């Protein structure tokens, strides 16, 4: 780039969208009707290009940018720094791309005066990109909050009673998460006296056995895991995703949840790498939480008939797989997590868009009620079926590449139970989505009589867009998730290595930069897991659709075996915010017990 050197880019993808959001708010009433749509899409695309350029520019050494020119003095960070590494920058590019696709999907959907929707979306995007690039703990919190505040409002945008209830649960639970993070920041600042990640890392290494450091990690991690929807902090997610407008759910599931987990990864490797207690916690407790989320989310997804709620539980399950990759604490696990994050975001984004298409074209989102009605929008059905196979682990594309790395790490570490949990998550979520595709778009499955006509909430989204306009971003996302998986694996391998060995001394100006240590990349030998998972998922969805054709005794046995346990699990997801808060306390207690 001759026009703009890569060294001055870091503030632009964050401050640029913010400035445009402010201008849109100030001039909102005077703009032509479609102007906010166009402006927001262009800004998202520009942010995507900037992040991608920075990602390529930082492949060998991170881009260090001190705001206000306040470089550290004798190792003391005076100001706030962005340290752009390939992992963060590629993540930023992915987020911006997802926003561009979503804004295109939502073209004309939010016609309200003042362009408030676009203002909130741009703030949301800026918050997420800032979260990925920052190198300062308090600054991280600022972007985390910006992202939360805009997310709360976007959830309740539809203004139905259930939307407001879901938004309220989301707000209460996530605000508690924010308080936990703030508490963690306070504790570690008190102990170490710094906020910059590198300075914190040095401080933590100097106080290895300090209980306050471990407590700070517990608080920070609980807050981020709340955003990342991990058992037992996950309850808000299904309520919020089910009621948010579909374009917003795309962002929530595609990026916001996984960003929380990326935050845990960054803190784990840059700040708490020197604390044995924390490393132990990550490798035991977080691994367990990830496995539990994968399994619980998968089983819950299978039990849903509200399609968006079903997809929401599948997000919990796949976020669990991401956490497993992170908690395995090795190069394979982390690089697998990064690729899986992109792949899952693209696929799940596309699936939520299909749900949006169902809401707009079929006027409902209930799987049983829409039985067979989706035939006239069959392209959406194709995407949904294909997406189900990808969730189940079909061996093509980014999700598979990421999963193979995670699987390699699990195999190396002999994590049998975790592997079973991951397999459960993949099979159940894949089967659930395949079942919906089969029932709604083909008309398979029994006619269940009364249940089909049972009253469900009147839900409908505006049907003022042609099908091709909604299908375009959906197909683009799925296509993106299929291409370049080989390159993505190489890039993620390098990005994970840079993330795991940050050069803190050089960032703080205490030493000259040392060359990055990157282990040579080697292709992953294909494993049997994807084939088994895909096969099982297809079989399970067949069983779910056609169990009435089984011999009666077998069908009853299936019912009886699955009934009570699933009922109890379902009852836990009560929708009462008081319950959720109690579970957060339980989650914190788990940190103490571990």
């Amino acid at each position, binding site marked *: 780039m001759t026009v703009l050197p890569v060294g001055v880019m870091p503030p632009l993808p964050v401050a640029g969208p*913010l*400035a445009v959001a402010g201008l849109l708010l100030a001039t909102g009433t005077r703009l032509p009707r479609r102007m906010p749509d166009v402006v927001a899409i262009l800004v998202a695309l520009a942010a995507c290009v900037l992040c991608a350029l920075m990602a390529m520019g930082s492949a060998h050494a991170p881009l260090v940018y001190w705001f206000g020119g306040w470089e550290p003095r004798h190792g003391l960070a*005076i100001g706030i720094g962005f340290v752009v590494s390939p992992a963060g920058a590629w993540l930023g590019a992915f987020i911006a791309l997802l926003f561009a696709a979503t804004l295109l999907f939502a073209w004309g959907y939010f016609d309200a*005066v003042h362009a408030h929707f676009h203002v909130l979306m741009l703030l949301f995007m800026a918050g997420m990109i800032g979260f990925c690039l920052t190198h300062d703990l308090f600054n991280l919190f600022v972007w985390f909050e910006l992202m939360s505040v805009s997310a709360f409002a*976007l959830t309740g945008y539809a*203004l139905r009673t259930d939307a407001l209830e879901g938004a309220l649960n989301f707000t209460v639970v996530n605000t508690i998460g924010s308080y936990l993070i703030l508490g963690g920041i306070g504790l570690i600042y008190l102990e170490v006296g710094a906020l910059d990640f590198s300075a914190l890392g040095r401080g933590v290494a100097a106080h290895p056995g300090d209980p*306050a450091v471990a407590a700070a990690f517990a608080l920070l991690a609980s807050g981020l895991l709340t955003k990342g929807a991990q058992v037992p902090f996950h309850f808000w997610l299904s309520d919020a995703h089910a009621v948010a407008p579909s374009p917003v759910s795309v962002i929530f599931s595609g990026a916001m949840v996984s960003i929380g987990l990326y935050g845990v990864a960054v803190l784990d490797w840059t700040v708490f790498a020197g604390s044995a207690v924390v490393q132990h916690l990550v490798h035991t407790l977080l691994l367990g939480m990830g496995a539990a989320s994968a399994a619980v989310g998968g089983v819950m997804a299978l039990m849903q008939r509200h399609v968006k709620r079903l997809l929401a539980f599948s997000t919990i399950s796949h976020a669990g797989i991401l956490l497993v990759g992170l908690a395995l604490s090795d190069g394979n696990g982390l690089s697998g997590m990064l690729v899986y994050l992109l792949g899952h975001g693209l696929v799940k984004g596309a699936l939520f868009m299909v749900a949006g298409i169902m809401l707009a074209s079929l006027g409902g989102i209930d799987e049983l009620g829409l039985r067979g009605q989706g035939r006239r929008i069959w392209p959406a059905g194709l995407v949904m079926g294909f997406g189900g196979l990808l969730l189940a682990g079909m061996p093509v594309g980014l999700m598979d590449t990421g999963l193979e790395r995670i699987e390699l790490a699990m195999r190396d570490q002999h994590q049998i139970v975790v592997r079973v949990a991951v397999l459960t998550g993949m099979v159940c979520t894949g089967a659930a989505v395949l079942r919906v595709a089969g029932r709604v778009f083909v008309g398979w499955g029994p006619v269940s009589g009364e249940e089909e006509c049972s009253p469900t909430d009147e839900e409908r989204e505006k049907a003022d867009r042609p099908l091709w306009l909604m299908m375009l971003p959906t197909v683009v996302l799925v296509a993106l998730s299929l291409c370049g998986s080989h390159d993505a694996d190489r890039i993620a391998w390098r990005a994970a290595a840079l993330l795991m060995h940050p050069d803190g001394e050089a960032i703080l100006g205490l030493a000259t930069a040392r060359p990055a240590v990157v282990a040579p990349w080697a292709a992953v030998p294909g494993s049997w897991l994807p084939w088994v998972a895909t096969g099982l998922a297809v079989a399970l969805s067949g069983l779910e659709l056609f169990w009435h054709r089984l011999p009666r005794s077998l069908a009853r046995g299936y019912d009886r075996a699955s009934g009570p346990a699933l009922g109890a699990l379902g009852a836990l997801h009560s929708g009462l915010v008081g319950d959720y808060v109690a579970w957060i306390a339980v989650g914190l207690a788990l940190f103490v017990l571990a």
Partner: protein
Amino acid sequence: MSPRVRVLLFALAVLCLAPAFAHVALHLPRFGAHPLPYGDAINAAGTRERHVTNMVSAVNFDYRGFDTLGEEFMLLGAVTGTATLLRGTRGERKEVPQQVPGRPVRARSDAVVLVARLMGTTTVLFGVYVALHAMTTPGGGFQGGVIVSSGLLLVFLAEGYRGWRRAMRSEILDACEGSGATLYALCGFASMLAGLPFLQNILPLGKVKDLFAGGLMLVENAGVAFAVAGGFAVLFLEFLEETRVEADGDDEEEKEA
């Protein structure tokens, strides 16, 4: 989960947390005994480098000015979100509304009107004063902006609802809020255009203890003051507008009257 089970679960969790809490609390540095290298460094260098005496402002607007940019837009997002959620059901009213049918108009006493008129103007003036003196004494654009907007709220007490609505135009308030926040971001871009890092000072710093010392911080501070005053005024407007929605009880009151 029944309420009893919920409380039991919570109590068990707290029981596990309590010893850990005590353990951590006992290991913290003693009160006032810990070194705070950042504060010392800023106190030592702040006045020399930035020509201001209010170090909190120096940190907020300059050393860690980028945080404040995020916070500014967080406020903007919160206000926009609240306005969206509140306005959604009733739509936005452009014209000055008439009296809600069936709600009695109670005459305000002259004393209330007089006090509110006097206090309103003084409060706004005081808010401007606090915002202007950001660099020398405690206070700043945020605090000043809140005071200004609460002074505006006194217009409601003094002039009644219609007077308040005539004075408060939501598009002007939105413009005030949006452009104030944007001004802050533009300060950063101005530094970049000058070839410096984002938000680095590009204006003369002025004399220490002077009202207009601090360079670029003054502009950022003004942006914050506008954004906060506008944002809070939008909130007041939306919440007051909520009281205008005809409540269920209104009709009955009318019948009784």
